[in-house]
């Protein structure tokens, strides 16, 4: 998509950034392929029934098919106005969060306190604390403090806090490194920092903010101030010392308003040893993650050498062993049951936990195809009942539609099932399938029986396994199609369905580089070209977003299938449980994978053969098995106790 940003003011983010940083931001955005037009005074949106262009006051016409407008935050104070409360920009409250009516408090984006209306979360949490204290009959009052602004765009580091307008009583210190794209500006008033703007390199933000907050007199270190904390005093400090020097009330996590003291106290009081521990107990670094580095430094500071993030992370508290060691030992020692693994590897708990048991079950399924008896009690509920649990305890069902292709018969069967079982929601998924949501667990076997009659099998939408192969219509229909992408997608899906993998695997095949099947953000993707098939892998479009890497180009469908199957088998054998392909590939190295799968014919064929072997035992439709009575106990209550009996 061709994107143009129109901005009324002379520079971007003019309230948060000074013009110099705004200019650098504009350049950085531009470098990512997004055009920026500043001083753009929009006069009209042109078009009759559909938008065609945007016209600016200076006559410039920008063609457009989609216009997105952002107008900022305006408090919704309608209710307060109706109720007769005093309202200015927001609902007026005093420092105790009390409105003009002493029995009503107001907090959040709707409230105006001391002339400020807030749109960031940290001050709103502070308001909630004050209101809660007041309600509990304690004394508390809200004081304004500037919240630093950070821009959460990958690769663009921007930080600003405080007041950075020019003024006669103000001085500034500026550092610029044009080629490195670094800009730092401190605004001083009476030898104290009142504002900071950082671009390109923002790690010193916490220190400058702290100096500003504590109103530290800086004339002693004025010569070196702009270089940051590391350059104060004789020898340069390391980043650890910088964090050590922060006071306890310095804010570390802006999303959740967590200060340094709270984190260090939790580390020592609760014996926390990992980033995940800190996230669980304090919520620091648990939202956007931009403070992860600081939290890790605090862990290092508190625990010393005992904290080593590079060290092997144990699977869970049941064992000191990491995933890779456990997989290796399962193979070397020939361990063939979960009980054997726990016994031989000296598990610390009697029967593991919800983290290690599903991992062990997968490792055993993968290592001993046809030998290991899958332990359903060690599978997450979705894989145990072959449907997706929803928030209200009902389930969703997604039948397999090979390559996303369906037919009148299939659609009719789905419609009949929806009617018969009064299924409340039917939705098309991102993977080109149809999802039926809100099915009672007791109804699942009957739903599957009806779907099975129409030829449907499980779509494995719940599985750490092959999910879907999306396709476009390819050379069958499309005037741009170079190969039969639909056919190849269906062929891959029919070959690979049913296989269990460390984490879900989503695929796509696009018939030309226009890529309508969006293959370049999938775990494995194929882009068809005139010369053959370009095999892609290690993409992501979920928690992380990442384009795929190119594994290589092959000439025939047979070769494409062999390469893809071998790649997935290598992933099955080497990845850690719940590790998606892109994370595994990053750990192993793209080049290493390419060598083994693409360059080494012998290895590739061996991987392929092992996958084929495991499919002999994996390609059993779980739905028809359950229609025939497998795991009956899962789908019915043990007993129904009535009122009369209860009253006996």
């Amino acid at each position: 998509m061709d994107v143009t940003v129109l901005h009324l003011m002379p520079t971007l983010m003019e309230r948060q950034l000074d013009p110099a940083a705004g200019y650098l931001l504009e350049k950085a955005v531009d470098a990512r392929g997004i055009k920026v037009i500043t001083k753009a005074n929009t006069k009209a949106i042109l078009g009759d029934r559909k938008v065609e262009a945007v016209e600016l006051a200076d006559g410039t016409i920008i063609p457009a098919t989609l216009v997105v407008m952002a107008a900022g935050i305006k408090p919704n104070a309608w209710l307060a106005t109706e109720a007769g409360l005093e309202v200015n920009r927001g609902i007026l409250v005093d420092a105790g969060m009390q409105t003009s009516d002493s029995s009503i408090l107001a907090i959040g984006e709707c409230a105006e306190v001391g002339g400020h209306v807030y749109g960031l979360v940290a001050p709103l949490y502070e308001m909630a604390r004050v209101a809660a204290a007041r309600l509990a009959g304690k004394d508390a009052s809200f004081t304004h403090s500037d919240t630093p602004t950070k821009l959460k765009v990958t690769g663009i580091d921007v930080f600003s806090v405080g007041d950075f307008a020019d003024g006669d009583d103000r001085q500034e210190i500026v550092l610029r490194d044009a080629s490195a794209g670094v800009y730092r500006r401190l605004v001083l008033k009476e030898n104290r920092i009142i504002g900071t703007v950082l671009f390109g390199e923002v790690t010193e933000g916490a220190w400058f903010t702290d100096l500003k907050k504590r109103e530290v007199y800086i004339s002693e270190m004025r010569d070196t101030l702009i270089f940051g904390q590391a350059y104060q005093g004789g020898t340069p400090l390391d980043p650890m010392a910088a964090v050590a020097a922060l006071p306890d009330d310095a804010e570390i996590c802006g999303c959740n308003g967590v200060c340094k003291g709270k984190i260090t106290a939790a580390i020592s009081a609760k014996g926390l040893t990992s980033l995940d521990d800190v996230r669980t107990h304090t919520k620091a670094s648990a939202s956007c993650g931009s403070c992860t580095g600081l939290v890790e430094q605090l862990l290092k500071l508190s625990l010393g050498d005992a904290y080593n993030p590079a060290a092997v992370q144990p699977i869970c508290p049941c064992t000191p062993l990491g995933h890779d060691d456990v997989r290796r030992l399962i193979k070397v020692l020939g361990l063939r049951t979960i009980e054997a693994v726990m016994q031989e590897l000296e598990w610390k708990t009697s029967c593991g936990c919800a983290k290690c048991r599903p991992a062990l079950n997968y490792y055993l399924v993968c290592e001993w195809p046809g030998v290991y008896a899958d332990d359903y009690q060690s599978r997450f509920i979705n894989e145990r009942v072959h449907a997706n649990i929803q928030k209200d305890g009902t389930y969703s069902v997604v039948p397999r539609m090979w390559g996303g292709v369906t037919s009148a018969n299939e659609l009719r069967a789905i419609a009949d099932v929806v009617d018969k079982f009064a299924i409340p929601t039917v939705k098309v998924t991102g993977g080109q399938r149809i999802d039926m949501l809100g099915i009672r667990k007791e109804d699942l076997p009957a739903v599957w029986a009806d779907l099975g009659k129409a030829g449907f099998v499980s779509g494995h939408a719940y599985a750490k396994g092959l999910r879907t192969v999306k396709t476009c219509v390819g050379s069958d229909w499309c005037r741009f199609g170079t190969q039969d992408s639909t056919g190849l997608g269906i062929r891959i899906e029919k070959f690979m369905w049913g296989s269990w993998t460390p984490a879900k695997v989503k695929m796509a095949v696009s018939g030309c580089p226009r890529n309508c099947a969006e293959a370049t953000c999938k775990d494995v993707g194929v882009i068809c070209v005139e010369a053959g098939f370009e095999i892609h892998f290690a993409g992501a479009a979920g928690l992380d977003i990442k384009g795929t890497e190119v594994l290589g180009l092959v000439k025939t469908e047979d070769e494409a299938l062999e390469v893809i199957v071998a790649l997935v088998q290598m992933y099955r054998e080497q990845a850690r449980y719940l590790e998606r392909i892109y994370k595994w590939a990053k750990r192993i190295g793209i080049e290493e994978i390419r060598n083994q799968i693409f360059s080494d014919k012998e290895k590739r064929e061996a991987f392929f053969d092992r996958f084929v072997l495991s499919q002999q035992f994996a390609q059993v439709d779980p739905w028809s098995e359950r229609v025939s009575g497998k795991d009956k106990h899962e789908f019915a209550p043990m007993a129904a106790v009535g009122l009369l009996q209860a009253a006996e």
Partner: protein
Amino acid sequence: MGWIKIGSLTDIPRRGARCVTTPQGRIAVFRTAEDQVFAIEDRCPHKGGPLSQGIVHGASVTCPLHNWVISLESGKALGADEGAVRTVPVKVDGEQLFVTGEMLSDLVA
């Protein structure tokens, strides 16, 4: 105490659970690896998740919705989370399992 029969031990898979429906809501009846039996309300204190659908380990269950770990003995959330579900006394007589009518009426209280 009026004991109501709900089924037998072998109706429940080891490290698994079954439900008993009552007019007052669902009870989850668990069987551990060591054949201990526990019954608790089938509603996670966090967001009401069906605990009977969770993975059973030791004398605990992990809620399938957001991974809270609940002690089957006390009904309390373990780890950093705070909250509790009601426990329901179960009588095991040989292979037969019973719950009490009195406890069921307590669930609504």
